[in-house]
């Protein structure tokens, strides 16, 4: 792939703290314009990896390229970052904090202020622009913090747990904001534990465990990679009588059934059998693909499984 299409390239990076290896021989790439998700259990090395991408920490070995080069101050100005542990100046007015932080990223005072007011209106906080940060609710502060990461129109946004502390309405508000930036070509790297958000938003993912990559690839590919030879059906019929079906298990919602297939039997063959069978009435038929949550538990729960799977 052309290097100019990559927003981040991490190659064989290792980081140790004393005897503890936080990140071990990690390699991955983030394409420009995609939503890339990093996930993993606590202590997997996500924060360390993000800090190394941002040049807050130096890797012991390996190399990292960001937005086409080794990171420097000019490149840093093209990145928006929201760390997991975050906060703002508490006794300062919201618009002042936003303007200051955007100015540090290279915006002029007037431009920073205007954009801050625009974004505050976008997240329905325009009336709080002159309030002190300490006067805002936790959810409001969360929205202001997210604005700090996007205010200077960065090319790359690295955002840790973007939806933590937000109610469903505000989650959708922030999601729409991120989608909007994504449509404008901004690359988004997000680290989150909310699997359904990854399934919904991310193009590709990287799962870390004990500092190593355990899953890496496009979200749908990863799910299919973990798919067992089974289909999910909803409807009426004698499912066990179908050729190649070895077991029938009730599904999660009580109306569906999971049909386990014999080795060599493909879902297509089963679908054909259902289609020609007069006694079958089908409302839904799909591959039994596990949710990312199930995959996460399966991979992260197996602490000794350190093999690298790539879809």
């Amino acid at each position, binding site marked *: 792939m052309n290097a100019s299409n990559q927003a981040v390239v991490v190659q064989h990076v290792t980081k140790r703290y004393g*005897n503890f290896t936080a990140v071990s021989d990690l390699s991955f790439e983030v394409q420009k314009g995609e939503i890339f998700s990093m996930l993993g259990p606590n202590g997997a090395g996500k924060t360390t990896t993000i800090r190394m991408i941002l040049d807050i920490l130096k890797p012991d070995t390996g190399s990292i390229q960001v937005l086409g080069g080794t990171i420097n101050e000019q490149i840093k100005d093209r990145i928006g970052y929201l760390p997991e542990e975050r906060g703002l100046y508490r006794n300062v007015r919201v618009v002042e904090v936003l303007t200051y932080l955007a100015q540090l990223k290279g915006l002029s005072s007037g431009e920073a202020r205007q954009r801050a007011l625009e974004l505050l209106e976008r997240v329905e906080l325009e009336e709080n622009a002159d309030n002190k940060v300490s006067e805002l609710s936790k959810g409001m502060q969360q929205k202001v913090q997210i604005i700090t990461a996007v205010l200077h129109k960065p090319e790359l946004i690295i955002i840790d747990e973007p939806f933590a502390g937000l109610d469903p309405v505000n989650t959708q508000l922030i999601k729409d904001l991120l989608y909007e930036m994504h449509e404008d070509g901004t690359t988004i790297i997000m680290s989150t534990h909310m699997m359904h958000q990854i399934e919904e938003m991310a193009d590709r993912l990287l799962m870390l465990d004990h500092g190593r990559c355990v899953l890496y690839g496009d979200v749908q590919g990863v799910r299919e990679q973990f798919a067992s030879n089974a289909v999910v059906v909803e409807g009426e019929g004698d499912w066990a009588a179908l050729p190649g079906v070895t077991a029938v298990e009730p599904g999660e919602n009580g109306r569906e059934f999971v049909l386990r297939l014999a080795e060599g039997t493909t879902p297509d063959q089963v679908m054909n059998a259902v289609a020609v069978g007069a006694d079958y009435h089908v409302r839904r038929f799909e591959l039994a693909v596990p949710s990312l949550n199930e995959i996460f538990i399966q991979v992260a729960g197996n602490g000794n499984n350190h093999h690298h799977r790539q879809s």
Partner: protein
Amino acid sequence: MSWQKIWLVLSREYRYNFRRPSFLFTAFGVPLFSIAAMFLVIHVVTDRETNLDNYQRIGYVDRAGVISADAPNQDGYQPVTDPAVEAPGASASEAEQTAYYDALEAAARQQLVNDQIDAFFVITDLYTLTGQIDLYGIKGPPAALRDNIEDFLRDQIVAQAPDTLPVSTARLHKPVDMTIRDLDSDDKLSTAALIGRMLLPFVFVFLYFMSANTTAQFLMSGVVEEKENRLMEILATSLRPIELLWGKMLGLGALALTQAALWAAGALVIAVLYEGAREFLTGASFQVGDIVLIIGLFVINFLLFSAIMLGIGASSTAEAESRQFAGFMTFIAVLPLALSSLFFMNPDGSLPLFFTFFPLTAATALIMRMGLTSLPNWQIALSLGIQLVSVLAVMWLAAKVFRLGMLMYGKPLTPRTLWQALRAGQKTLTTAQDEAPVRKPRKKRSLFRL
């Protein structure tokens, strides 16, 4: 380094800290308080001591017989009389004389209580030997009244002086007219200027200390706040730690100078308003070289203290914790002021000399000694050298501590951890969950077990 980002941090730190109530109180409150105190001294205390409006009727009882009818009299000074008390004749016995004066004294007391006179004094029997005068008043008589009585009696003595005296009666009245002059300029120095010459360095050191210490503590609490609020990580991706560090130090340095300027303006206002204060300020014997030295010391000492406070802020986890360390540093720095009596007694003594060469106290001790003694050049040079080396070393260490400790949330940067990190060449330490170095707990050794 990006000077634009340093400027942004500088102006933000300046504006934010300028609006702090504690700064506003120190910067504006101190000059206002001084002006108010001056007003109080001049218009209330001084007025009370100089105003004789309430002391127009002064009585006296002359037991010593020194009051002469020939001497010029003070307006309102009258011998105490009482129609009920009859003056003894020329041949009256000593006991009759004593009884007469006792009766006059009793009458004077009564007249004072009845508001017939405002005060009275008794020239005692032994006045010619001891100069003893007893003064009575309802409230404490003002200093001006005491001076007037002194003048009154001096006039009496001068009136009785024989013509054969080798000096004029004017000299008897005022034997000395002393002029104190400056050694270098030969200018006349007033008493206020003389006091100013001695005290001004102390006043300056005190104000300087307040200014530097206040702003350096702002620097520390700012760093702690950014750590506590987890802003440091965002800042770390927006500018270099060294840019943040310089921006903060310069911003607060500018704030310290603003504070000093406000105080200087306050001093000028006081000087314009009050003659005494003007004379006090003219007592400053600083030459141009001294002023350059003082400004240099101010800058070096501010950098030293702000670097120390910055290091404390970066290595602490909470403001309360950092204040404990800062308090200890302040205690050491304030020692020369606290022990200023030692400087007055012997400015070249061993302790003032030690303070002159100890980095944390060198600037204050040097300035304090400037007003009290003639400082040898080698002492100034050595003290400056020690301060310069110290400030460079402390700033280097503060920059390291700042970088190492800025992401240490909820975990202090201990000297041991700092030493290990410096030896290992690490630049940033973090307390990200489960990412801190895992160390085996040290085995506890019992003194009683081999």
